[in-house]
Protein backbone atom coordinates (compact mmCIF):
# COMPACT_ATOMS: atom_id res chain seq x y z
CA UNK A 1 0.00 0.00 0.00
CA UNK A 2 1.32 3.40 -0.94
CA UNK A 3 0.96 6.47 1.22
CA UNK A 4 -1.36 9.06 -0.32
CA UNK A 5 -0.70 11.49 2.51
CA UNK A 6 2.51 11.82 4.42
CA UNK A 7 2.96 14.41 7.14
CA UNK A 8 6.43 15.02 8.57
CA UNK A 9 7.25 17.15 11.62
CA UNK A 10 4.29 19.45 11.04
CA UNK A 11 4.29 22.52 13.28
CA UNK A 12 1.76 25.32 13.51
CA UNK A 13 2.00 28.37 15.71
CA UNK A 14 -0.74 30.99 15.38
CA UNK A 15 0.00 34.72 15.32
CA UNK A 16 -1.18 35.06 18.94
CA UNK A 17 1.53 32.59 20.01
CA UNK A 18 -0.67 29.52 20.47
CA UNK A 19 1.23 26.40 19.52
CA UNK A 20 -1.55 24.32 17.95
CA UNK A 21 0.62 21.57 16.44
CA UNK A 22 4.00 20.75 17.99
CA UNK A 23 5.48 17.96 15.91
CA UNK A 24 3.03 15.80 14.01
CA UNK A 25 4.15 13.00 11.72
CA UNK A 26 1.88 10.41 10.17
CA UNK A 27 1.27 8.42 7.00
CA UNK A 28 -2.14 7.65 5.58
CA UNK A 29 -2.57 4.96 2.93
CA UNK A 30 -4.85 5.05 -0.08
CA UNK A 31 -8.42 4.10 0.85
CA UNK A 32 -7.97 4.27 4.62
CA UNK A 33 -10.80 5.65 6.77
CA UNK A 34 -9.05 7.42 9.64
CA UNK A 35 -10.69 8.99 12.67
CA UNK A 36 -8.81 11.75 14.48
CA UNK A 37 -9.89 12.10 18.09
CA UNK A 38 -8.94 14.49 20.88
CA UNK A 39 -10.50 17.11 23.12
CA UNK A 40 -11.40 20.60 21.92
CA UNK A 41 -8.32 22.67 21.25
CA UNK A 42 -6.08 19.64 20.83
CA UNK A 43 -5.25 20.68 17.26
CA UNK A 44 -7.52 18.36 15.21
CA UNK A 45 -9.06 21.15 13.19
CA UNK A 46 -5.71 22.84 12.58
CA UNK A 47 -4.26 19.54 11.37
CA UNK A 48 -7.00 19.08 8.77
CA UNK A 49 -6.83 22.70 7.62
CA UNK A 50 -3.07 22.52 7.14
CA UNK A 51 -3.54 19.67 4.68
CA UNK A 52 -5.52 21.84 2.23
CA UNK A 53 -3.73 25.01 3.30
CA UNK A 54 -6.77 26.82 4.71
CA UNK A 55 -4.28 27.30 7.54
CA UNK A 56 -0.63 28.15 6.82
CA UNK A 57 1.71 25.60 8.43
CA UNK A 58 4.68 27.04 10.32
CA UNK A 59 7.03 24.17 9.51
CA UNK A 60 7.40 20.59 8.35
CA UNK A 61 6.04 19.01 5.20
CA UNK A 62 2.74 17.56 3.99
CA UNK A 63 3.03 15.37 0.91
CA UNK A 64 -0.39 14.94 -0.70
CA UNK A 65 -0.24 12.48 -3.61
CA UNK A 66 3.38 13.42 -4.31
CA UNK A 67 3.08 17.22 -3.94
CA UNK A 68 4.35 19.12 -0.90
CA UNK A 69 1.42 21.25 0.27
CA UNK A 70 3.63 23.36 2.53
CA UNK A 71 5.80 24.58 -0.36
CA UNK A 72 2.97 24.81 -2.93
CA UNK A 73 2.42 28.05 -4.89
CA UNK A 74 -1.00 29.68 -5.22
CA UNK A 75 -1.83 27.77 -8.39
CA UNK A 76 -0.59 24.49 -6.93
CA UNK A 77 -2.65 25.02 -3.79
CA UNK A 78 -5.83 25.39 -5.85
CA UNK A 79 -4.92 22.27 -7.83
CA UNK A 80 -4.35 20.39 -4.59
CA UNK A 81 -7.58 21.65 -3.02
CA UNK A 82 -9.71 20.38 -5.87
CA UNK A 83 -8.43 16.88 -5.20
CA UNK A 84 -9.18 17.20 -1.50
CA UNK A 85 -12.86 17.52 -0.55
CA UNK A 86 -13.82 19.07 2.78
CA UNK A 87 -16.87 18.65 4.99
CA UNK A 88 -17.61 21.05 7.84
CA UNK A 89 -19.27 21.01 11.24
CA UNK A 90 -21.58 23.90 10.30
CA UNK A 91 -22.09 22.42 6.78
CA UNK A 92 -21.04 25.80 5.32
CA UNK A 93 -23.35 25.61 2.32
CA UNK A 94 -23.97 28.85 0.46
CA UNK A 95 -27.43 29.26 1.92
CA UNK A 96 -29.12 31.52 -0.58
CA UNK A 97 -28.50 29.40 -3.70
CA UNK A 98 -29.94 26.04 -4.74
CA UNK A 99 -28.76 22.66 -3.58
CA UNK A 100 -27.66 21.79 -7.12
CA UNK A 101 -25.53 24.94 -7.36
CA UNK A 102 -23.87 24.10 -4.05
CA UNK A 103 -22.89 20.72 -5.45
CA UNK A 104 -21.59 22.38 -8.63
CA UNK A 105 -19.30 24.56 -6.47
CA UNK A 106 -17.23 21.41 -6.20
CA UNK A 107 -16.37 21.83 -9.90
CA UNK A 108 -15.02 25.40 -9.55
CA UNK A 109 -11.42 24.27 -9.23
CA UNK A 110 -11.70 22.61 -12.65
CA UNK A 111 -13.16 25.61 -14.49
CA UNK A 112 -11.20 28.63 -15.66
CA UNK A 113 -11.62 31.61 -13.32
CA UNK A 114 -13.98 33.61 -15.56
CA UNK A 115 -16.31 30.81 -16.65
CA UNK A 116 -16.37 29.55 -13.08
CA UNK A 117 -17.14 32.99 -11.67
CA UNK A 118 -20.01 33.39 -14.13
CA UNK A 119 -21.39 30.04 -13.00
CA UNK A 120 -21.01 28.35 -16.39
CA UNK A 121 -20.79 24.60 -15.99
CA UNK A 122 -20.83 21.96 -18.72
CA UNK A 123 -23.88 19.81 -19.32
CA UNK A 124 -21.87 16.79 -18.22
CA UNK A 125 -20.92 18.42 -14.91
CA UNK A 126 -24.55 19.29 -14.20
CA UNK A 127 -25.63 15.75 -15.06
CA UNK A 128 -22.97 14.31 -12.73
CA UNK A 129 -24.00 16.65 -9.92
CA UNK A 130 -27.58 15.46 -10.29
CA UNK A 131 -26.42 11.85 -10.18
CA UNK A 132 -24.50 12.47 -6.97
CA UNK A 133 -27.60 14.04 -5.42
CA UNK A 134 -29.66 11.05 -6.55
CA UNK A 135 -27.14 8.72 -4.94
CA UNK A 136 -27.48 10.62 -1.64
CA UNK A 137 -31.30 10.59 -1.87
CA UNK A 138 -31.56 14.34 -2.39
CA UNK A 139 -32.82 14.52 -5.99
CA UNK A 140 -36.17 15.93 -4.83
CA UNK A 141 -34.41 18.76 -2.99
CA UNK A 142 -32.25 19.67 -5.99
CA UNK A 143 -33.85 23.04 -6.77
CA UNK A 144 -34.60 24.08 -3.19
CA UNK A 145 -32.59 26.77 -1.51
CA UNK A 146 -29.90 25.21 0.68
CA UNK A 147 -31.16 26.86 3.88
CA UNK A 148 -34.59 25.24 3.46
CA UNK A 149 -33.08 21.83 4.23
CA UNK A 150 -32.77 20.14 7.61
CA UNK A 151 -29.34 19.80 9.25
CA UNK A 152 -28.92 16.18 8.16
CA UNK A 153 -29.90 17.00 4.59
CA UNK A 154 -27.52 19.97 4.54
CA UNK A 155 -24.66 17.76 5.62
CA UNK A 156 -25.52 15.33 2.83
CA UNK A 157 -25.28 18.26 0.39
CA UNK A 158 -21.89 18.99 1.98
CA UNK A 159 -20.82 15.42 1.17
CA UNK A 160 -22.23 15.80 -2.37
CA UNK A 161 -20.22 18.99 -2.88
CA UNK A 162 -17.06 17.16 -1.83
CA UNK A 163 -17.88 14.20 -4.09
CA UNK A 164 -18.41 16.36 -7.15
CA UNK A 165 -14.74 17.31 -6.86
CA UNK A 166 -13.94 13.62 -7.57
CA UNK A 167 -11.54 13.83 -4.62
CA UNK A 168 -8.68 11.53 -3.69
CA UNK A 169 -9.05 12.53 -0.06
CA UNK A 170 -11.98 13.81 1.99
CA UNK A 171 -11.32 15.84 5.13
CA UNK A 172 -14.31 15.91 7.48
CA UNK A 173 -14.06 18.39 10.35
CA UNK A 174 -16.49 17.32 13.09
CA UNK A 175 -19.14 16.38 10.51
CA UNK A 176 -21.68 15.24 13.10
CA UNK A 177 -21.07 17.64 15.97
CA UNK A 178 -24.12 19.79 15.07
CA UNK A 179 -26.49 16.87 14.47
CA UNK A 180 -28.76 14.75 16.66
CA UNK A 181 -27.66 11.15 17.45
CA UNK A 182 -29.91 9.43 14.88
CA UNK A 183 -28.92 11.79 12.05
CA UNK A 184 -25.27 11.52 13.09
CA UNK A 185 -25.47 7.77 12.62
CA UNK A 186 -26.93 8.16 9.10
CA UNK A 187 -24.28 10.67 8.07
CA UNK A 188 -21.43 8.47 9.34
CA UNK A 189 -22.89 5.46 7.50
CA UNK A 190 -23.20 7.40 4.25
CA UNK A 191 -19.71 8.87 4.55
CA UNK A 192 -17.98 5.58 5.32
CA UNK A 193 -19.99 3.62 2.71
CA UNK A 194 -19.22 6.11 -0.05
CA UNK A 195 -15.54 6.36 0.79
CA UNK A 196 -15.22 2.58 0.75
CA UNK A 197 -17.18 2.18 -2.50
CA UNK A 198 -15.25 4.89 -4.33
CA UNK A 199 -11.88 4.16 -2.74
CA UNK A 200 -11.62 7.66 -1.28
CA UNK A 201 -9.20 8.18 1.59
CA UNK A 202 -10.92 9.92 4.50
CA UNK A 203 -9.78 11.77 7.60
CA UNK A 204 -12.59 12.49 10.06
CA UNK A 205 -12.25 14.62 13.16
CA UNK A 206 -14.54 13.26 15.85
CA UNK A 207 -15.49 14.03 19.41
CA UNK A 208 -17.16 10.71 20.12
CA UNK A 209 -14.78 7.84 20.81
CA UNK A 210 -17.50 5.20 20.33
CA UNK A 211 -18.37 6.52 16.86
CA UNK A 212 -14.70 6.54 15.92
CA UNK A 213 -14.31 2.95 17.07
CA UNK A 214 -17.30 1.76 15.07
CA UNK A 215 -16.48 3.35 11.73
CA UNK A 216 -12.73 3.87 11.45
CA UNK A 217 -10.06 1.51 10.14
CA UNK A 218 -7.57 3.39 12.20
CA UNK A 219 -7.68 5.96 14.99
CA UNK A 220 -5.25 8.78 15.65
CA UNK A 221 -5.39 10.45 19.05
CA UNK A 222 -4.09 13.98 19.40
CA UNK A 223 -3.35 15.82 22.59
CA UNK A 224 -1.90 19.30 22.89
CA UNK A 225 -0.62 19.27 19.34
CA UNK A 226 1.11 15.87 19.37
CA UNK A 227 0.07 12.39 18.30
CA UNK A 228 -0.38 10.28 21.45
CA UNK A 229 -2.16 7.31 19.89
CA UNK A 230 -2.04 5.75 16.42
CA UNK A 231 -3.50 2.32 15.83
CA UNK A 232 -6.50 0.15 14.99
CA UNK A 233 -9.76 0.69 16.92
CA UNK A 234 -9.18 -2.56 18.85
CA UNK A 235 -5.99 -1.17 20.37
CA UNK A 236 -7.81 1.86 21.76
CA UNK A 237 -8.52 0.58 25.27
CA UNK A 238 -9.43 2.62 28.34
CA UNK A 239 -5.81 3.31 29.10
CA UNK A 240 -5.20 4.68 25.61
CA UNK A 241 -8.37 6.81 25.80
CA UNK A 242 -7.07 8.18 29.08
CA UNK A 243 -3.85 9.15 27.37
CA UNK A 244 -5.75 11.07 24.66
CA UNK A 245 -8.26 12.86 26.85
CA UNK A 246 -6.17 12.90 30.00
CA UNK A 247 -7.18 13.27 33.60
Amino acid at each position, binding site marked *: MSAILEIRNLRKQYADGTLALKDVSLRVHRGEFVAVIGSSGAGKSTLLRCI*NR*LVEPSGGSIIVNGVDAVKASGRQI*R*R*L*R*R*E*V*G*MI*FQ*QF*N*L*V*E*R*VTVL*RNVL*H*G*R*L*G*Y*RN*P*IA*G*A*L*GLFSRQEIEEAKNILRRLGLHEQMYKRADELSGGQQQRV*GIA*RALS*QKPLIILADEPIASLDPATSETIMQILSAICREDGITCLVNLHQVDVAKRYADRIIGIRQGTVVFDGPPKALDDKAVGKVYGP
Partner: protein
Amino acid sequence: MKRSGQLLEDLQKRKKRQIWLAAAGIVLITAWSARETDFSVVSVVRGFGEIVRFIGQDFFPPDFSAFRSLIGPAVDTICISFVAMVVGAVLSLLLSFFAAATTCPYRWLQASVRAVCSVLRNIPALIWALLLVAAYGLGTLVGTLALILTSVGTLTRAYAEILEEIDMGQVEAVRATGASWPQVIAHAVLPQFFPGFVGWSLYKLELNMRASTLIGMVGGGGLGFSIQKGLKLFQFQEVCVAILMVIVLVLTTEFITGKLRERLI
Protein backbone atom coordinates in the same frame (compact mmCIF):
# COMPACT_ATOMS: atom_id res chain seq x y z
CA MET B 1 -25.38 40.76 54.32
CA LYS B 2 -25.92 44.02 56.16
CA ARG B 3 -23.00 45.66 54.42
CA SER B 4 -24.20 44.74 50.93
CA GLY B 5 -27.68 46.08 51.83
CA GLN B 6 -26.09 49.39 52.84
CA LEU B 7 -24.11 49.42 49.60
CA LEU B 8 -27.23 48.87 47.51
CA GLU B 9 -29.03 51.70 49.27
CA ASP B 10 -26.12 54.06 48.63
CA LEU B 11 -26.09 53.05 44.99
CA GLN B 12 -29.82 53.75 44.63
CA LYS B 13 -29.44 57.13 46.29
CA ARG B 14 -26.63 58.07 43.93
CA LYS B 15 -28.68 56.91 40.93
CA LYS B 16 -31.61 59.08 42.01
CA ARG B 17 -29.38 62.10 42.40
CA GLN B 18 -27.97 61.57 38.91
CA ILE B 19 -31.45 61.42 37.37
CA TRP B 20 -32.47 64.69 39.10
CA LEU B 21 -29.25 66.38 37.95
CA ALA B 22 -29.82 65.28 34.36
CA ALA B 23 -33.43 66.51 34.39
CA ALA B 24 -32.38 69.89 35.82
CA GLY B 25 -29.66 70.15 33.18
CA ILE B 26 -32.10 69.52 30.32
CA VAL B 27 -34.54 72.14 31.63
CA LEU B 28 -31.76 74.72 32.01
CA ILE B 29 -30.36 74.18 28.52
CA THR B 30 -33.84 74.35 26.98
CA ALA B 31 -34.65 77.60 28.77
CA TRP B 32 -31.36 79.15 27.74
CA SER B 33 -31.73 78.09 24.07
CA ALA B 34 -35.29 79.39 23.95
CA ARG B 35 -34.12 82.78 25.21
CA GLU B 36 -31.25 82.90 22.72
CA THR B 37 -33.51 82.06 19.77
CA ASP B 38 -36.47 84.20 20.88
CA PHE B 39 -38.62 81.10 20.96
CA SER B 40 -41.87 81.71 22.81
CA VAL B 41 -45.19 79.93 22.86
CA VAL B 42 -46.99 83.24 22.43
CA SER B 43 -45.32 84.07 19.13
CA VAL B 44 -45.88 80.52 17.89
CA VAL B 45 -49.60 80.80 18.54
CA ARG B 46 -49.76 84.28 17.00
CA GLY B 47 -47.94 83.04 13.87
CA PHE B 48 -50.16 79.99 13.59
CA GLY B 49 -53.11 82.03 12.37
CA GLU B 50 -50.89 83.60 9.72
CA ILE B 51 -49.79 80.16 8.45
CA VAL B 52 -53.37 78.96 8.17
CA ARG B 53 -54.33 82.14 6.30
CA PHE B 54 -51.30 81.88 4.00
CA ILE B 55 -51.91 78.22 3.09
CA GLY B 56 -55.70 78.47 2.99
CA GLN B 57 -55.98 81.62 0.86
CA ASP B 58 -52.77 81.82 -1.18
CA PHE B 59 -52.11 78.14 -1.87
CA PHE B 60 -55.66 76.88 -2.35
CA PRO B 61 -57.18 76.03 -4.67
CA PRO B 62 -54.20 74.49 -6.48
CA ASP B 63 -53.84 75.71 -10.05
CA PHE B 64 -53.86 72.43 -11.96
CA SER B 65 -53.31 74.18 -15.29
CA ALA B 66 -49.66 74.35 -14.17
CA PHE B 67 -49.51 70.55 -14.04
CA ARG B 68 -48.38 70.14 -17.66
CA SER B 69 -45.48 72.53 -17.30
CA LEU B 70 -44.36 70.73 -14.13
CA ILE B 71 -44.14 67.27 -15.72
CA GLY B 72 -40.71 68.09 -17.16
CA PRO B 73 -39.21 69.11 -13.80
CA ALA B 74 -40.84 66.10 -12.13
CA VAL B 75 -39.17 63.76 -14.63
CA ASP B 76 -35.90 65.60 -13.92
CA THR B 77 -36.30 64.91 -10.21
CA ILE B 78 -36.88 61.22 -10.84
CA CYS B 79 -33.91 60.99 -13.21
CA ILE B 80 -31.58 62.86 -10.84
CA SER B 81 -32.44 60.54 -7.95
CA PHE B 82 -32.22 57.39 -10.02
CA VAL B 83 -28.99 58.17 -11.84
CA ALA B 84 -27.38 59.30 -8.57
CA MET B 85 -28.39 56.06 -6.89
CA VAL B 86 -27.12 53.83 -9.74
CA VAL B 87 -23.80 55.65 -10.19
CA GLY B 88 -23.41 55.88 -6.42
CA ALA B 89 -24.12 52.16 -6.02
CA VAL B 90 -21.56 51.16 -8.68
CA LEU B 91 -18.83 53.37 -7.21
CA SER B 92 -19.66 52.26 -3.67
CA LEU B 93 -19.59 48.61 -4.66
CA LEU B 94 -15.99 49.00 -5.79
CA LEU B 95 -14.99 51.13 -2.80
CA SER B 96 -16.71 48.94 -0.21
CA PHE B 97 -14.25 46.10 -0.77
CA PHE B 98 -11.53 48.46 0.43
CA ALA B 99 -13.62 49.79 3.30
CA ALA B 100 -14.40 46.38 4.83
CA ALA B 101 -11.96 44.85 7.30
CA THR B 102 -12.61 41.37 5.87
CA THR B 103 -11.73 42.18 2.26
CA CYS B 104 -9.30 45.12 2.43
CA PRO B 105 -5.65 44.09 2.18
CA TYR B 106 -4.21 47.10 4.11
CA ARG B 107 -5.35 48.78 7.34
CA TRP B 108 -4.27 52.26 6.22
CA LEU B 109 -6.21 51.94 2.96
CA GLN B 110 -9.33 50.87 4.81
CA ALA B 111 -9.01 53.79 7.22
CA SER B 112 -8.55 56.35 4.44
CA VAL B 113 -11.47 55.07 2.32
CA ARG B 114 -13.67 55.19 5.40
CA ALA B 115 -12.51 58.71 6.25
CA VAL B 116 -13.27 60.02 2.76
CA CYS B 117 -16.71 58.42 2.81
CA SER B 118 -17.40 59.87 6.23
CA VAL B 119 -16.72 63.38 4.89
CA LEU B 120 -18.92 62.77 1.82
CA ARG B 121 -21.71 61.46 4.00
CA ASN B 122 -21.63 63.99 6.80
CA ILE B 123 -21.72 67.10 4.64
CA PRO B 124 -25.41 67.44 3.69
CA ALA B 125 -26.36 67.18 0.00
CA LEU B 126 -27.64 70.77 0.23
CA ILE B 127 -24.17 72.09 1.06
CA TRP B 128 -22.59 69.99 -1.70
CA ALA B 129 -25.11 71.49 -4.13
CA LEU B 130 -24.30 75.05 -3.02
CA LEU B 131 -20.57 74.38 -3.54
CA LEU B 132 -21.15 72.73 -6.92
CA VAL B 133 -23.41 75.50 -8.21
CA ALA B 134 -20.40 77.78 -7.93
CA ALA B 135 -18.44 75.48 -10.19
CA TYR B 136 -21.02 74.18 -12.67
CA GLY B 137 -23.81 76.79 -12.60
CA LEU B 138 -27.50 76.07 -12.16
CA GLY B 139 -28.98 72.86 -13.49
CA THR B 140 -29.72 69.18 -13.03
CA LEU B 141 -26.02 68.24 -13.31
CA VAL B 142 -25.38 69.92 -9.94
CA GLY B 143 -28.23 68.04 -8.28
CA THR B 144 -27.04 64.74 -9.70
CA LEU B 145 -23.43 65.29 -8.63
CA ALA B 146 -24.41 66.36 -5.12
CA LEU B 147 -26.53 63.25 -4.67
CA ILE B 148 -23.82 60.97 -6.12
CA LEU B 149 -21.38 62.32 -3.52
CA THR B 150 -23.69 61.60 -0.58
CA SER B 151 -24.72 58.25 -2.11
CA VAL B 152 -21.09 57.14 -2.26
CA GLY B 153 -20.61 58.25 1.33
CA THR B 154 -23.63 56.39 2.65
CA LEU B 155 -23.60 53.27 0.48
CA THR B 156 -19.88 52.50 0.77
CA ARG B 157 -20.22 52.43 4.53
CA ALA B 158 -23.42 50.34 4.37
CA TYR B 159 -22.01 47.83 1.87
CA ALA B 160 -18.75 47.53 3.83
CA GLU B 161 -20.72 46.66 6.93
CA ILE B 162 -22.62 43.95 5.04
CA LEU B 163 -19.30 42.55 3.81
CA GLU B 164 -17.96 42.45 7.36
CA GLU B 165 -20.97 40.49 8.57
CA ILE B 166 -21.00 37.70 5.98
CA ASP B 167 -20.57 34.11 7.13
CA MET B 168 -16.89 33.29 6.55
CA GLY B 169 -17.68 29.58 6.83
CA GLN B 170 -19.37 29.68 3.43
CA VAL B 171 -16.39 31.54 2.01
CA GLU B 172 -13.99 29.00 3.48
CA ALA B 173 -15.99 26.10 2.04
CA VAL B 174 -15.92 27.47 -1.51
CA ARG B 175 -12.21 28.31 -1.13
CA ALA B 176 -11.60 24.72 -0.05
CA THR B 177 -12.91 23.40 -3.38
CA GLY B 178 -9.95 25.00 -5.17
CA ALA B 179 -11.89 28.04 -6.38
CA SER B 180 -9.87 31.12 -7.40
CA TRP B 181 -10.43 34.60 -5.92
CA PRO B 182 -12.99 35.84 -8.49
CA GLN B 183 -14.88 32.56 -8.15
CA VAL B 184 -14.98 32.81 -4.37
CA ILE B 185 -16.29 36.38 -4.62
CA ALA B 186 -18.95 35.40 -7.17
CA HIS B 187 -20.18 32.22 -5.50
CA ALA B 188 -19.66 32.70 -1.76
CA VAL B 189 -19.56 36.47 -1.15
CA LEU B 190 -22.07 37.93 -3.62
CA PRO B 191 -25.02 35.65 -2.72
CA GLN B 192 -24.68 36.77 0.90
CA PHE B 193 -24.12 40.38 -0.10
CA PHE B 194 -27.06 40.67 -2.50
CA PRO B 195 -30.07 41.22 -0.16
CA GLY B 196 -28.37 43.96 1.81
CA PHE B 197 -27.09 45.52 -1.39
CA VAL B 198 -30.58 45.75 -2.88
CA GLY B 199 -32.14 46.92 0.37
CA TRP B 200 -29.68 49.74 0.95
CA SER B 201 -29.65 50.87 -2.69
CA LEU B 202 -33.45 51.16 -2.77
CA TYR B 203 -33.46 53.01 0.53
CA LYS B 204 -30.93 55.45 -0.86
CA LEU B 205 -33.21 55.97 -3.90
CA GLU B 206 -35.97 57.03 -1.50
CA LEU B 207 -33.65 59.40 0.35
CA ASN B 208 -32.43 60.84 -2.95
CA MET B 209 -36.01 61.52 -4.04
CA ARG B 210 -36.59 63.55 -0.89
CA ALA B 211 -33.23 65.32 -0.99
CA SER B 212 -33.48 66.16 -4.69
CA THR B 213 -36.40 68.53 -4.07
CA LEU B 214 -34.39 70.36 -1.44
CA ILE B 215 -31.34 70.49 -3.68
CA GLY B 216 -33.52 71.87 -6.48
CA MET B 217 -34.19 74.94 -4.37
CA VAL B 218 -30.56 75.98 -4.40
CA GLY B 219 -30.26 75.46 -8.14
CA GLY B 220 -30.01 71.73 -8.60
CA GLY B 221 -32.90 71.50 -11.06
CA GLY B 222 -36.10 69.45 -10.88
CA LEU B 223 -39.28 70.15 -8.94
CA GLY B 224 -37.44 71.92 -6.14
CA PHE B 225 -36.24 74.52 -8.58
CA SER B 226 -39.81 75.07 -9.81
CA ILE B 227 -41.03 75.47 -6.23
CA GLN B 228 -38.34 78.03 -5.47
CA LYS B 229 -39.08 79.93 -8.68
CA GLY B 230 -42.83 79.91 -7.98
CA LEU B 231 -42.35 81.20 -4.44
CA LYS B 232 -40.25 84.11 -5.68
CA LEU B 233 -42.86 85.05 -8.30
CA PHE B 234 -45.75 84.71 -5.79
CA GLN B 235 -47.37 81.98 -7.94
CA PHE B 236 -48.44 80.11 -4.83
CA GLN B 237 -51.21 78.09 -6.44
CA GLU B 238 -48.71 76.63 -8.92
CA VAL B 239 -46.28 75.92 -6.07
CA CYS B 240 -49.09 74.06 -4.35
CA VAL B 241 -49.37 71.68 -7.33
CA ALA B 242 -45.59 71.17 -7.31
CA ILE B 243 -45.63 70.33 -3.60
CA LEU B 244 -48.48 67.87 -4.10
CA MET B 245 -46.44 66.25 -6.89
CA VAL B 246 -43.43 65.92 -4.57
CA ILE B 247 -45.59 64.18 -1.98
CA VAL B 248 -47.03 61.80 -4.59
CA LEU B 249 -43.55 61.05 -5.98
CA VAL B 250 -42.06 60.29 -2.57
CA LEU B 251 -44.97 58.09 -1.53
CA THR B 252 -44.96 56.22 -4.86
CA THR B 253 -41.22 55.59 -4.61
CA GLU B 254 -41.64 54.31 -1.08
CA PHE B 255 -44.43 51.98 -2.21
CA ILE B 256 -42.54 50.63 -5.22
CA THR B 257 -39.23 50.13 -3.40
CA GLY B 258 -41.10 48.40 -0.59
CA LYS B 259 -42.69 45.97 -3.04
CA LEU B 260 -39.37 45.36 -4.82
CA ARG B 261 -37.65 44.63 -1.54
CA GLU B 262 -40.29 42.05 -0.65
CA ARG B 263 -39.91 40.33 -4.01
CA LEU B 264 -36.10 40.28 -4.10
CA ILE B 265 -35.12 39.45 -0.56
